[in-house]
């Protein structure tokens, strides 16, 4: 039994061209991820200040 893989020829030759709507959506998602990660970093920073050196010494 032989197995052949047929790729979508048009797209593999020219690559995927994002439409304007897709580009806008990708940009919005990227900004949302960046903001979320920023908030997480700030949260860890502030909690470290609040808890001091014993930040990982947490109660059950």
């Amino acid at each position: 039994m032989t197995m052949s893989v047929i790729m979508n020829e048009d797209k593999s030759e020219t690559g995927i061209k994002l439409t304007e709507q897709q580009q806008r959506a990708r940009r919005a998602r990227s900004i949302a991820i960046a903001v979320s990660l920023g908030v997480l970093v700030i949260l860890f920073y502030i909690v470290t200040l609040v808890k001091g050196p014993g930040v990982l010494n947490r109660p059950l």
Partner: protein
Amino acid sequence: MSVTLTRAEPSIAGAGDYIALMKPRVMSLVVFTAFVGLMIAPGHLHPVIGLTALICIAVGAGAAGALNMWYDADIDERMTRTAARPIPSGRVAPGEALAFGLTLAVFAVVVLGLLVNVAAAALLALTIAFYVLVYTMWLKRSTPQNIVIGGAAGALPPVIGWAAATGGLAIEPIVLFLIIFFWTPPHFWALSLYRTEDYARAGIPMLPVVAGEAETRRQILLYSLVLAPLGVAPWFLGYTGPLYAVVAIAAGAVIVALALRVRGERSGHAASKQMFAFSILYLFLLFATLLVDWVAGGLFGRFAA
């Protein structure tokens, strides 16, 4: 044998679609009840740690919502109420929703465990797992008791809030858990009475679909008769002041009166719609009054003293 590989179309999902995956309206009730559980707990919790706990609980609830939408996409597209959700409308691919939900769930639980405490993190993990594995994947499509048992997931947030503040459990948050637990069936069955066709088309065995409208109306009344006195229990057990008692007794009387109207309704669904709308207000009123009572100093302070 040949395999044709086609690339997935690039996503057009915006940030708003991912927020919709997190069921923001459900999340707001979760955060509110968790906030009340956190506030009324004895002892002092630094505001930053409290806010961290609430963010983690909100994200955890959002994760559960996204995983629910991922698993239920096939039935969501058959129901008019849910057909416009991000997956059935084609804006978010199911795999994206799954990855989003799992990522949020892991982050919420780990961050809650690292920055607040392990007990709250364990309860949050249990809540997410119960909602996704027990309610969504098992009960929802198999039994009319789906929302009764599954309601435990929605009832846990005040317990998580309490655990975040104290690192443990007590009778008080369990009473709050029971109030939400017994509130859930009349709330959802009132909705299902006027969405019966939707649920039947999607193949979900909601009580009106399986047992009929008359039995559903009877069950709404029975659960309301349990809920109304349970709502007063925090005062009866001595945890709250008289303000809470007045609000809980009055709101409980209204919910029983509405349940009686639903029971007696022969045509149309006006009473069911009223019941559904008031049930949301009922839960908000009870928890808001708990908070007001606590702020006024009459609440659990006497336990902490």
